[in-house]
Structures are given as C-alpha cells and as structure tokens.
C-alpha cells in the first residue's frame, strides 16, 4: 500500500498534476487523484513525511529534471510539477513542524526597489518550493529596509534579488550594502538574477552567486546545501 501510493504520487509529480482536475502528459491519468489528494491519502495512512518527500517528491522532480534536460519536457511541464509539489508541501507543513522535519532551507526572494517585473522571480519561487525549499516571496518594488528587516527577523539562509532593468540593477548592490551595515551579510547567501544582471556585476556588488535562470537557482542552492552538509 505504502509503496503503491508513493509510486503513484511520484508518477503524478512527473505528470505535473496538482489535483484531480489537472491534465497531465498521459491521458490515462485524467480524472484520477493528483499529487495533493494523494499526499493527503498518504498522510492519513500514516506514511512518513520523509518517505513522501524523498521517494515521491524528490524522486519525481529528478525525473522531471532529466526529461527537461533531454528536451522532452518544457518549462510549463517543469513548473506544473514544481507547483504540484509546492501545494503538497503546504498541506504537509503542520505534519513536518510537529515531527521536527526541516525543509531544505529558508529562501527569501524580492524584486528590488523601483522594479515591478516579477515573471522570473515568480518562476524561481515556484521551482524552489517544488525543490523542497521554504520560500518567502517579498514581492516587487521592495526597498532595502524591508529586506533587511525580514533577514533580521526570519533569518533565511538564502536571499534572491531580481531586477530586469539596467536602471534598477544597482539596487541589488544597495541591498547587499545594507545587509553589511546591519551585520547580516554573513548570515545569508545572496543570489542575484534578472535580465540586467551578469556574472561580472554579481562579483562587483559582492553577491554570492549569479543565476542565469530559475533552474540555475535550484542548482546553486542545492550546491550550497551540499557544501554545508
């Protein structure tokens, strides 16, 4: 029973089916329970949350990543799978907290002051949540004081800053400087991204990493995780 439902959750992650009403890649899944309903069933059957996360979510997302890299899957497929896992993680949150199971890490993300572009930021948030991170989206046009306050109070291990415009990219440096002034810089890894950013700019403003796209952000965070393990 346990293995069957875990396998089914994994298959639905690969199909990118959050709920029963969602379409997948394979028509034979139509009308069957999606990741959210199946996760609920698994919890009711007292299956360990860690088993659900590792054997269903992570294993499923790994297959999705492989299919994306071989161009069988496209970004909408990847996001659908990540959204399905993210929604399931939401219903697992109370169980995880009571069982003292930690997420892969706390990640805050913001589009900097003066910039309201958020497509890339939102995709990063969806993918990281699907990858098992606790994601806090601070929104768009976020001033440095708000970011500093959040880092001070919530203590995220990772901070993502996004800017589309050449006129607003310098705000990413302003945030890093504000973190330094508040002696918070060493507590958080700062990742930057967005159309205006670059590897060179990342080094100039003292960020920890530049991510060319959302997938790079997942890889970079996973690499930070491994280096800390």
């Amino acid at each position, binding site marked *: 029973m346990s293995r069957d439902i875990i396998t089914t959750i994994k298959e639905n992650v690969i199909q990118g089916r959050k709920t029963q009403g969602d*379409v997948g*890649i394979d028509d034979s899944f139509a009308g069957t329970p999606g990741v959210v309903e199946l996760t609920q069933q698994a919890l009711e059957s007292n299956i360990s949350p860690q088993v659900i996360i590792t054997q269903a979510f992570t294993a499923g997302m790994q297959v999705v990543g492989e299919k994306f890299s071989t161009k069988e899957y496209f*970004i*909408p*497929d990847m996001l*659908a799978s990540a959204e399905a896992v993210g929604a399931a993680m939401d219903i697992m949150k109370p169980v995880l907290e009571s069982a003292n199971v930690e997420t892969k890490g706390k990640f805050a993300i913001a589009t900097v002051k003066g910039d309201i572009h*958020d497509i890339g930021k939102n*995709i990063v948030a969806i993918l990281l949540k699907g990858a098992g991170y606790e994601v806090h989206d601070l929104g768009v046009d976020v001033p440095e004081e708000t970011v500093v306050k959040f880092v001070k109070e919530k203590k995220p291990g990772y901070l993502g800053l996004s800017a589309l415009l050449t006129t607003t990219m310098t705000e990413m440096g302003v945030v890093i400087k504000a973190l330094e002034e508040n002696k918070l810089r060493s507590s958080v890894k700062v990742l930057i991204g967005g159309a205006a950013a670059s590897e060179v700019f990342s080094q100039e403003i003292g960020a920890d990493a530049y991510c060319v796209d959302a997938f790079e952000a997942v890889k970079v965070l996973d690499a930070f995780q491994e280096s800390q393990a």
Partner: protein
Amino acid sequence: MPRKGILVDSPYERLTREQVELIHQASMQILTDPGLISFNREAVDILHSHGAAVESIAGDHQSWRVKISEQLVLSAMNSAPKTVKLGARNPDNTLIMHGDEPKVYLITGSETNIWLDIDFPTYVNKTDPTKEIRVPQFKPRRGTVDDLCQSAHVCEHLEMVDGYIRTVNIQDRDITEDNKDVNKFFASLNNNTKHFMSGLTSLKQLDNVVRMAELIVGGKNALEDNPIISFITCLVKSPLQFVDDTTETFIEVCRRGLPIVVSSSPQAGTTAPIKEAGIMAQINAEVLAGITLGQLVKPGAPVLYGSVPVRARMDTLGDSYGSVETSQYNIDCVQMAHFYRLPNYSTSGVCDSKIPGQQSSIERLFSDILVTMSGPQFLHCAFGLLDCNSVFCLLQAVLDDAHFKMIEFFLQQPRIDQPELEAMLKQIREVVATPQKLYISYIRPVLRSGEISGVYPFEGTSEADDVFDLAYERMKELLARPVEHIDRETTARIFEEIPGILPRLNIYESRN
C-alpha cells in the same frame, strides 16, 4: 484520402480584377497578332483544323505562324478540367487540385546537373589552437542515379513534401539518352510513394514509363483512376514559339489522357519584356496556347497552368530566381490561373545562391512565403535547389522542409470566435486574481496539441550556429529510415518487360 496541403483562405493578390482582365485581353490580342510560331507540324494541323489561321514562314527551319482566336481559346478553357487528380503509389499521398480552391501542395524539383556533397572539416584557431570549429564544406559533382534514389528516399520522409519531381539529372556512364527515362522513373518511383512528375528525355520511352506505372498500380484502367505519374513539357519557347520535339511529347501525353503541365518560362529582359505588364501578357498567352492545343488533342485532358517566369540578371543576363520581381510574376500567374479556374503549377524557392547559407535562406524564404500565400495548387518550390536550377543539395532540402513547416503554421486560420473568447475572458479573470499572475499553467493543455509552433528544429545549444550540423544529422536519420519499395513480384515484372533499367536498381537481386 488526399494529402491535406495548405489551404490559403484569403490568398494574397497583387492584381486588381481589372488588371487581370486587361492581361487576359492583351494575351488574346497577342495570340492573333503576332500569334505563335510553331516548329511542330502536327500542332499546326490540329490548330488549323479547328479554325486557327496558319501561314508558312520562309527560312531554314520549317515553321508556321499560327493565329489563335479568342473564341478557340475560350472553348478550350471550357473543356479543360477544373479539378485534376495526381495519384500516388500510396493512395494517402494523392493530390486533388481544384482550380477554384487555393489549397497548396508543395513539390520538389526541378532537375539539376550538379549534386552538392557536404563535409564538415575541423578548423583550428591559429592564435589559440585549443579552439576548434567545424565548418561545412560543399563539394559539387555530377549527379548520378544513386543520388536520385537518395533524394527520392529523403523526400519520401520530408513531412512537407507532397509530391516528387526528380531533383537530379542522372549522368552515370551507363546512362544513355535511350535508357535515361526508364531509370529516372524507376529510381524515383521505387524510393518514393508520393506522386511523381517528370519531363521526358526521349519520346520513344513514353510507352515504357507508362507501362511501368501500369504495372505498379495494376493495369491501364487502374492508372487512369490513380495516375501516379505526370509529365511536364516546356512546349513553348519564349517568345511565343512551339518547339518541335517538346510539342510532339505534349501531344502524345495529352492523347493518353495523362496529367501534364503546360509550362512556360520567359525571362523578363531577354525573352519577354522587362516590364511586368509585358511579361504577364506574354506568358499568359503562351500557356493558354499550350492548353488550347492540349484540349484540341483530347478534350478534358488533365492540364495544369504552368508558370516559371523569371527576371534576367543585369550582370550576366542569366536567370535571377532570387530577384524580387520573380516572385511578383509568379504571384500574378497564380491570379491568372485562378481567373481561368485552372489548377496552377507555380514556382518559388529557387535562389541565386550557390551554396546553403544566409543568401540562400533569404532568397528562398522570401518567395516561398509570398508565393504560397497567393494560393497556387501545385507549388514547385525547389526543395534543395541552389544556383538557380543547376545544383541540388539534400541538406538544403531538409532545411526547406523545416521552413515550410513554419509557413504552414503561419497560414492556419485564426481561431477567434465567441466560445474561444469567453474561455479566454474566464482565464484572464482567474489569473489576475492569483498572486503570481502567470498564465503558464494554461499552456500545458495546448502544449502538445499542435496549437503552438515548435522550436526551430536546428537550433544549437551554444552561441555557435549549429544549423548545418543538426540538419545534416537529420538528413542521415531520414536516410536510415526504410522506405516502402515496389514489391518483389512487380519489380521482377518491370525488369522483365521494360528494357534498359540498370540491374543495380533491382534491390531484390542486388541484395541476393
């Protein structure tokens, strides 16, 4: 079920209705003054017996001036079929063309003398020997019957190719004028199940190639129902001359009731006026004269209004298929054929460039897009052709197929109706109410339905241009796929009854 083709609901038109009628009237005047010069006696006799005025012309070659009245032309137009069927070995590849329906079928050809081989030598950067780059190198050589087999094989698998016109002139040492036709027909038909169109090198071989087709489809009546072969003749030499031998071939094919293209290829500036009105009035007169002759030979003979107009290059006075005017003339001809409600054989994609590359892509895409949009029924769109009509490159044909896929997608009709708009309004309201405000989750239901155009199939993964490399891989993949050859028993009968086919083309014998 015939092939679906590309239906162009609102064809692009350059000419107004008044201009079309003016061209028609001018063509009618040309056919009586100055009329045509015919070097073929039989054509003269046929036209004369139906009332055309004929007078002998003094000179070295026997020739006659023929004046064809508008009444005779219009009567012939009435008997010319408005629907022409081109059959195929695989019935699913049948082409049905209605003169009043702008549905475009894409066809290969014409015949080139040169085959372009491709190689990818590696070059090392002189200043940094760790840096290497693979650059395509194109090597021209004379075409062979093996090349024709390969071309037919790949074109069988090219999705956008609806029919096959032989792409390469076979010039092997054991190919002669007497056996060329049977070998080009067999090589093409044996490696391709789509409709096959060709010219004839020798009229003496007409019975042999028709018999070959009869054996393949199962007899004379079966060939009438499913004409898997058709012919193209340039019976007209511009300006306004019926050539002796091609006119003889044309008459014989019409007599047998097999489909044939009446083709004219005047060159604006040399064999036709440089001005659009002039070349249009002349080419239309030339094609109508041919169609008239064909209908007098056999009323109801299936003919296509064939047009291959081209502008002259100003530096060499050779053909300039890449010139913008060439596309204009071709689109004008499509409109004239629509005016007469006759299925049209038109031309696009022939380029001046000698090798695949940027010039080739720009020239061919320019005319491919525009002429397709005008809605000819049979678009001889030069898959793989380069250097006007003299070079064929299989790699280019693979690229052309991908580009036509894009043109086909572009010409789909917009799906905008009340239910669709209501669904979209619902979607917009739903997304705007979400925090992320992204429509991405709505992509998936249409992602694999064909409603979204694909990524360019030869897009590279790095900053380097990998188009040729990837297209070459695709070409090899298509060559490795099997094709449905003519069956063993029929092949044996063909080799038994039809003389001159090279033994190495018998795949059953050569495999043993």
